[in-house]
């Protein structure tokens, strides 16, 4: 019953979906590490990414150019993120930090409702699927859906680019510095609100990318970001808020637990296994696997 083949296949598919969940978690944690706020509308940026992907493939580029639609969708969400930071968040962050994260919570929750209603208003409650004419791919001896493999590869490329940006560019240095001291970067002459803007754009673009990549798998509709966002937050709790390696490790861990739970226990409870892991972590190490400190009140 527990054939090696099934174990290997479960492992591979768990890792693949885990990396996509990790994109979401990375976006949440990255924005938090720079701005010290939670973006509750993360799922709606995922949703916008998926709609953009669908619209580009269905109306403009055609299914053959799906791979070109992916970076365009992510870039579109990035630009939208810049606008949101500039118009809704920057005015809060210009003031002294009193109750700043409370305002940010209210603003992003309002944005969540607005964007969902807007999606329903514009495209209706229907589900769309950009379809995927990608063939089934053999990973070793195992057949895998082409769309999932492609999503995994794209996600890996995005993670590598993200790492290179942080590690080797001037902007990456500014981002890393800002996550350690906002006053420190200001004394260095860095426009900290400009750093926020880029960080917010990148963070939501990661969600948008996940939305575009998962559009053929989880479909496109106004609340499609919900499940992935919940998983993103679960990963953040497991990995530790503000920890980038934590997000990656916990993302893969969550993907694995879900797949193994679904394959060997019961697939009906797929969304519960991760939650059990969250409870376990909260009981054993409340700051998460790689989280260093609790959140300052």
């Amino acid at each position, binding site marked *: 019953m527990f054939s090696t083949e099934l174990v290997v296949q479960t492992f591979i598919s768990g890792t693949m979906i885990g990396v996509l969940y990790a994109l979401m978690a990375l976006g949440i944690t990255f924005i938090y590490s720079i701005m010290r706020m939670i973006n509750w509308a993360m799922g709606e940026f995922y949703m916008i990414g998926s709609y953009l992907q669908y619209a580009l493939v269905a109306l403009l580029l055609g299914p053959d150019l799906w791979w070109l639609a992916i970076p365009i969708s992510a870039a579109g969400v990035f630009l939208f993120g810049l606008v949101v930071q500039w118009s809704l968040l920057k005015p809060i962050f210009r003031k*002294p930090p*009193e109750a700043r994260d409370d305002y940010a919570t209210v603003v992003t929750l309002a944005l969540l409702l607005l964007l969902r209603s807007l999606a329903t208003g514009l495209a209706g409650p229907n589900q769309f699927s950009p379809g995927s004419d990608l063939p089934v791919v053999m990973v070793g001896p195992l057949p895998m859906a082409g769309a999932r493999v492609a999503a995994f590869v794209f996600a890996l490329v995005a993670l590598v680019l993200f790492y290179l940006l942080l590690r080797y560019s*001037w902007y990456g*240095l*500014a981002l*890393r*510095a800002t996550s*350690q*001291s906002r*006053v*420190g*970067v*200001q*004394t*260095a*002459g*860095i*426009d*900290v*609100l400009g750093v926020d803007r880029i960080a917010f754009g990148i963070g939501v673009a990661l969600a948008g990318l996940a939305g575009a990549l998962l559009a053929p798998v989880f479909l496109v509709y106004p609340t499609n970001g919900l499940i992935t966002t919940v998983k993103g937050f679960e990963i953040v709790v497991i990995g530790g808020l503000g920890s980038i390696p934590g997000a990656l490790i916990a993302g893969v861990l969550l993907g694995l637990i879900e797949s193994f739970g679904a394959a060997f226990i019961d697939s009906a409870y797929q969304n519960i296994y991760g939650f059990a892991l969250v409870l376990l972590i909260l009981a054993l190490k409340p700051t998460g696997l790689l989280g260093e400190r609790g959140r300052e009140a």
Partner: protein
Amino acid sequence: MSAPLLAVDDIHAAYQSGVDILQGMSLAVPVGGFVLVIGPNGAGKSTLLKTVFGLLSPHRGGISFDGRAIAGLAPHEIKRLGVSYVPQELNTFPHLTVEENLRVGGWTIRNDAARLRARIARVYEIFPVLAERRRDKAGGLSGGQGRMLSVAREMITEPRLMLVDEPTVGLAPNLAEQVYELLQTARQSIPTTILLVDQNVSDALRHAEDVVMMNLGRVKAAGPVVEFGEARVRELIQECLLG
């Protein structure tokens, strides 16, 4: 006397509206000068420096740097004009290496790689310890070395004015003396002008040219150090404390 490099004119500033911490504060710092600001805890000394650097904006009064009104500008804009600020708290990035810390300090000249390299090399010459530890994380430095890095980081841009807040707090006396010498070095080598806030009155007075005594957000007394003498300064502090 020629026009001052920094002129603070009757500023009022608050963290929460209605509670003014600075209540009509004024001072002038001459080009090349070394002005010391002293006063009891909570007098508003740190708030004064934060306000000059743009972290807080005054709701009344004016600040001019080199003849230009700067009140209301953002910190990064003020930095670009040639002002550096060394905060009271340790101002390093603990998870970046010493060298990365210095590179962040050189943000405004990052597009001139040769100049940045030369400036960092110069800082290493002045602080050989930092050169030795260039690849170590700043979080692992000792208190004194961390202070050094905080000040050195703000010297990279060769600012025309350095705002320095209590750089010797918690340092052993010999280290404290090193920090004052370091400020003198910056003053002569860059050369720059210094506005120093300090509680370590007797040591700081030996290095400063002018002293401003602050209490309750405004000036209590001010003048050249030679006219004050430490005894007189201590008397003034006593008076402030007694109200």
